[in-house]
């Protein structure tokens, strides 16, 4: 994977996307998945691979403000998009959702945590009102094997309330 190698890209400019507010060139094979591009090419290993089949949600990132499972998106599909990974969520301080997960003990082994946080951010953006039942329903695409989700729900609710009040 030394140089761009797209089937019909010979005389086109190199495709780019923005990852955590930095422009990056999308190199690699055309079939490269976004998750592998982020992890292997950019070294952003906070995005995890849990099931390889877009069910567990460990690989969730934000693409143009919406949560996507990056194991089901080709890197090339993200051309021109803004991608935010867990590493890009921190500015000077932790993002309120990150802080809430830490505050409420909403993690154990931590493997699902980045995907949970980005899914949480997406649901907070989309839902003006977030009660526990809604959170539970919205979180169905993210699996956690360690916790019973109790503190995860609590953390999301708390972060949502905080973000609304700001």
């Amino acid at each position, binding site marked *: 994977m030394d140089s761009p190698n797209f089937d019909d890209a010979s005389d086109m400019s190199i495709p780019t996307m923005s990852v955590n507010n930095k422009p990056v060139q999308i190199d690699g094979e055309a079939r490269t998945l976004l998750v592998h591009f982020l992890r292997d090419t950019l070294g952003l290993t906070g995005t995890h691979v849990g099931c390889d089949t877009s069910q567990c949600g460990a690989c969730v990132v934000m693409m143009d403000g919406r949560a996507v499972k990056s194991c089901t998106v080709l890197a090339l599909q993200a051309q021109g998009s803004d991608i935010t990974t867990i590493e890009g969520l921190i500015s000077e301080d932790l993002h309120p959702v990150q802080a809430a*997960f*830490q505050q409420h003990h909403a993690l154990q082994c931590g493997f699902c945590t980045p995907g949970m946080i980005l899914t949480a951010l997406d649901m907070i953006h989309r839902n003006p009102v977030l009660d526990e039942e809604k959170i539970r329903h919205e979180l169905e695409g993210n699996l956690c094997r360690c916790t019973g989700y109790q503190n995860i729900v609590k953390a999301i609710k708390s972060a949502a309330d905080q973000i609304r009040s700001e």
Partner: protein
Amino acid sequence: MDSRPGKGMRVHQALRHDSALKHVSGEALYVDDLPAPSDMLHIYIAMSPHAHARILEMDLDAVRVVTGVAAVVSAGDIPGQNDVSPVAGDDPLFAEGEVYYAGQSLFAVAAESLEIARAAALEAKVQYEILTPLITIDQARQAGSYIEDSQTMACGDAAAALKNAPRRLKGRMIIGGQDHFYLEGQVALALPQEDGDMVIHSSTQHPSEVQHCVARVLGLASHSVTVEVRRMGGGFGGKETQPALMAAAAALVVRKTGRPAKLCLDRDDDMKLTGKRHDFEINYHVGFDETGRIEGIDLALASRCGYSEDLSSAINDRAMFHVDNAYFLGQATITSHRYKTHTVSNTAFRGFGGPQGMMGIERVMDEIAMALGKDPLDIRKVNLYGKAPRNITPYHQHVEDNVAPELITQLEAHARYRERRAEIKDFNRASPFLKKGLALTPVKFGISFTKTHLNQAGALIHIYADGSVHLNHGGTEMGQGLLIKVAQIIAEEFAIDLGCVKITATTTGKVPNTSATAASAGTDLNGMAALNAAQEIKGRLIAFAAKHYHCAREHISFSDNHVTIGNRVIAFADLVNQAYLARVSLSSTGFYKTPEIHYDRATHRGRPFYYFSYGAAVSEVVIDTLTGENKVLRVDILHDVGRSLNPAIDRGQIEGGFVQGMGWLTTEELYFDDGGHLLTHAPSTYKIPACSDRPVEFNIEIWEKGSNLKETIHRSKAVGEPPLMLAISVFSALGDAVASVAGHKFMPRLDAPATPERILTAVEETRRRAGVGKS
């Protein structure tokens, strides 16, 4: 975070997981996240498509010539022994001559990318002679296929007691297995070193065993292999023996190529290739009086162990140790049959056979209640362990710390069990299709490895001249919070801030010959070993201070990052530096072995457990009798963790264990076809609990009165496994809901997992037996 100084201000505090900040920021590194060396190879394991077959020919030439393939390794390439088993020497790294389960590893391909390795593996030409497989317990029973002799544990004369009992009943239940579904799959990264040595980064609960297995496969001495693990993305027992195969394959590729190599199983391969919780069949014959008190019982356990022994011997023993759960069984005979089948070799899984054993006796309690027309809770209470002579277990250990009666009574009142029982009765009378069920079940779980020699641990502590502490021990972190708990213990001992204690990766290079982080005993063992090391250094510091400042030892004390020496108060770091300049050793190992325990396996008698952990749960469920669909409406848990070292961590274990147990007993179904192929090998078909499955109302209380009679670390109790078995209350409540369709006259034949299909079948069968038509 509360890290204020003072006695008990570091232990018994609800501190965050030490890696919490790294987890929420994505900085925590798992093995697959470690920066890849530029020349690293990626490994793919080719697996057997057949459950039982003779390998007539395995031609791998076409695999080797694929562009990008660096090495292909199979059994013939192993310089040492072709064995990655924990005990019995019967788990080949690569199949040789015969395959024994669908999914068994045949050979490994190492290539420049995983895609190349996977594609190249398809070029192999393997010819098989298909042999008849034994897939089910029934098939193995008929063929007389066992991994070891059947075991019998006996207390008194069960046959006579059964004969003389006023009432008797018989029954049978099937309990399914469970896949661990740790979110981080099995992974190992092997790095070549000089002298042919090997460094392995492994996602393992048992670095020492990985070290020993890799050395055995490569024909090296153990000192040539170093295994390191900073953290796992979940373990649950699935990373106790299983990681050895991944590590050995990666190490073999390194040996062959001289290049770093990584093996990371994808989810489907992981589920096919690695062992799971044993499925069980339990037959019971119980005699009891009109109050429901058991007088004699004959319990026969049978389990599917798979193609090899793995840890099945100890797992089935633990099932036998837990068929009593919290109850005095009177005269009891317990037999255990361990069947060898052509399926993946089943292995450790949270509870280690205990949950399956407990399922059997809880079914017996429900069935006695149905037979006598009583509330199952009353049957449970009348059978609890009590004062002598009702305090002897079937393995002849006396129950000395029985808090179950008190804890159950408290939960019964707190959860309004009786009132809700009446409300549910009313609800069911008025509701034609939806039926509710309720159950309270206790847990008593024995703490210690039942193989006595495993109950030991080591630790290593350094204090650097600036006063900072480097902490290492044999325990591994899989999310359960072991490392923060041990760090709290050390910070407490030196009375320094938690931030002064550096938590470091577990490595065989620092603490040798460790036991697996398993049996819920991680904190009990490693916490004590680390304390021992800390006390050794503290003793030297006190001796130094006494001499240097001409002060009696009893006038030296540690608090608030300082040391008081007579009338003088100096910073801890300053005392450390003074001790260094005076040439005092500031490093120490620590060691611990659990006292009092012993066990004679030949007679199944002794004291295998240092103490017991207790808990109880009330679950309320609703089922749809037209579809079998179901929901857990409310759960109340009261759990005894002794004096909690960290209530936040312990609550997490209780909640997570319960939900994992609930998954085992309701939605997680391992489905093997007649040919022995696991068909539910991905989350699309294998359903672990999702967020919406968790109980609508979920109340968890740590028992305030909890303490440990034994001198465990700060009087805490083990918490990793016991809460999983609280979920038996969900299964029991589902049975209660089903039984309501025929007025609780019959115990429904409900097996686990209680999927909607099974519940629907049980509803229809119960109605048929009762002669009740559909409402």
